[in-house]
């Protein structure tokens, strides 16, 4: 039975005229388009998958050259907000853009009802939720030291990363200026040293219309990516802290101040349940 059918089909096939050229070409184009689409999509998925796996590996095997972070001692913080001002003076941030803020939490039944002050820069998370959502990869975690940065020339200003950050550590530059800048005083002539780019904030040029954030003052790093506390090449907030509450350093170095503090003291990180593992710790 089977043989009969196949024989019939064979006969039918041989009766049919061979495929004509136009048809062949049109089919070829269709197949080509389909393959192209499949390649693009498939490549994207593979790419994603591979980066996911690579990420998993990098955590366990590949160690970053530097692993910068902060340890903030809530017991030493007096709530003076010098860090907020020092950051503004260093990075020349505009109104409404404040890479670090100090918020206070009033705890009942605490001796003398003293509030707890917490200064909150960007946490430069190990698993930053903000970088993956960027449609143009303009914000990313640097390979060499884990600092999360924004490429001002690439950022389109969609602000998706701001919605994705669980700590409100990102700020949109609306183009507002302090009166001193608007009146054209000497202050206005000083560009921000951020990323060593010294941009002029005028005519809607970047960083106006971009998302901005704390960079651990990476423009103060030397060419090897190292900070130097003795020279004052140190994040502005940590350098200025009146109560010496903000400790900055390299977690890769077991003898750094921050590593020692983490070994010896009790600490918390904010929203630990999200698994973002911030690189800024609070001592309690």
């Amino acid at each position: 039975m089977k043989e009969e059918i196949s024989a019939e089909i064979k006969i039918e096939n041989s009766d049919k005229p061979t495929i004509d050229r136009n048809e062949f070409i049109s089919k070829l184009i269709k197949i080509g388009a389909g393959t192209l689409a499949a390649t693009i999509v498939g490549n994207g998925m593979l790419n994603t998958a591979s980066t996911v796996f690579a990420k998993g590996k990098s955590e366990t095997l590949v160690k970053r050259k530097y692993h910068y972070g902060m340890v903030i001692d809530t017991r030493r913080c007096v709530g003076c907000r010098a860090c907020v001002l020092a950051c503004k003076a260093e990075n020349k941030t505009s109104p409404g853009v404040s890479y670090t803020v100090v918020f206070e939490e009033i705890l009942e039944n605490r001796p003398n009802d003293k509030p707890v002050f917490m200064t909150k820069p960007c946490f430069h998370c190990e698993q930053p939720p903000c970088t993956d959502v960027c449609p143009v990869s303009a914000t990313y975690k640097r390979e060499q030291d884990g600092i999360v940065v924004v490429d001002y020339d690439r950022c389109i200003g969609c602000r998706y990363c701001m919605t994705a950050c669980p700590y409100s550590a990102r700020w949109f530059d609306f183009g507002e200026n302090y009166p001193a800048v608007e009146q054209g005083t000497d202050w206005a002539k000083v560009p921000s040293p951020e990323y060593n780019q010294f941009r002029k904030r005028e005519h809607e040029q970047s960083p106006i219309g971009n998302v901005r954030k704390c960079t651990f003052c990476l423009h103060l790093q030397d060419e090897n990516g190292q900070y130097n506390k003795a020279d004052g090449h140190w994040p502005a907030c940590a350098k200025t802290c009146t109560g010496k509450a903000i400790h900055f350093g390299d977690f890769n170095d077991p003898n750094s101040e921050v590593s020692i503090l983490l070994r010896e003291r009790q600490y918390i990180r904010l929203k630990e349940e999200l698994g973002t593992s911030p690189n800024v710790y609070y001592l309690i």
Partner: protein
Amino acid sequence: MNFIKELLSDRDKVSHNLKMIFWGIGGLLLLVGFYGWAIRFFNGHIKANYGSIVTWGLWVAAYIYFIGLSAGSFLVSSMVYVFNFKKFERIGKLAVFTALVTLLMALLSIWVDLGHMGRAWHVMVFPNFKSPMAWMIYLYSIYMLLLFVEIYFLLRYDFVTGSNNETLKGKLYKLFSLGSTDKSEESKLRDKKIVKRLATAGVPIAILFHGGVGALFGVVAARPHWHSGLFPILFLLSALVSGGALLTLISSIFQEGWSKNKEIVIELGKMVLALLLLDILFQVSEFLVAYRGGIPGHTAGFDLVISGPYAWVFWGWQGFIGTIVPIVILVLPTRKSPRWVALAGFLIAAGIFGLRLNIVIPGLAVEEIHGLTSAIYSHRVDPHYFPSISEWLLTFGIVGFGMLLFGLGEHFLPTHNESETESLSESKV
């Protein structure tokens, strides 16, 4: 006989008057919109009221609303071109054209929301395949291309037959026919086949890209108000509801209005009612899960929706005007009158905008860290958001632009789906 004639002419008048109102409103909105556009181009984002806490405002809400209308009306049109649902054939072309116009409106809304409008092309050259936003952009780019091609093949035959060098319409048709001169019946059949294929391919694309818009919000674990697996589905349902409702309104004004589209309007009304009830089920589910769980972090956004300063958007706009009133209209005997059904369609379409606002803003207006918004004093660090005048006017301008573009298209393009006999008689003329 006389009485019937009078009634007919009267009905024509109603349709005509409605169109005049439509043109008037469209033109007015476009005009006031120029103020918003000027402010946006010359002052950037300074005059906008969103900030670093409520990072997305009216423009993003308008964007997800318009793009929902587009996906919704495209999926309704696919009932004609994919599933051969003959009843809606008269408004098939109208639905595809609505999908295109609302898509353009959506793209304009999101374009002005970008910090750097001149960098929109970056998405194509610096892709990040991990970003749901990037995926959404690729998908709606494909969708837009597909819409253009589908419209071309839908109308090609009419363009070719209608092209001449005398009238404006004829010249336009010649331009739009893109050099095609094939008037044969075979080419008409071929076009039909192509349209069917494109429409079929469009269904998964429309579902993916609008589901993608929902996923864009759903993946943000930092915002418990958005972080729900229901979100992509909820977006799709709301898209179908709003798209269907808008088509109800449109088909009762255009293509000779409700005098000829009575059946379609009533049928669409039934469909929209069913979809709206399903949509409500999904929304109620979101609320129930949040409040049964009772975790303050999870309910904070919902608290803002139902008892925040803009609770009237939920209770009055989205709930009463956009849901209860139209459901009553569509359940009572008024469901058999195309005018009432059209009104219900209008109310539902307007109500879904309230729903979109209630997704975007309350999700963001919650302090992520307690005490953050009182830590520094700036109107950019404020959980309280109400769109500024320029934001409103620009949005109105986009609506006006869409209305005029739609009106022009309806006037010039052969969106009218003639039955075979009609097209024959026309070709004789």
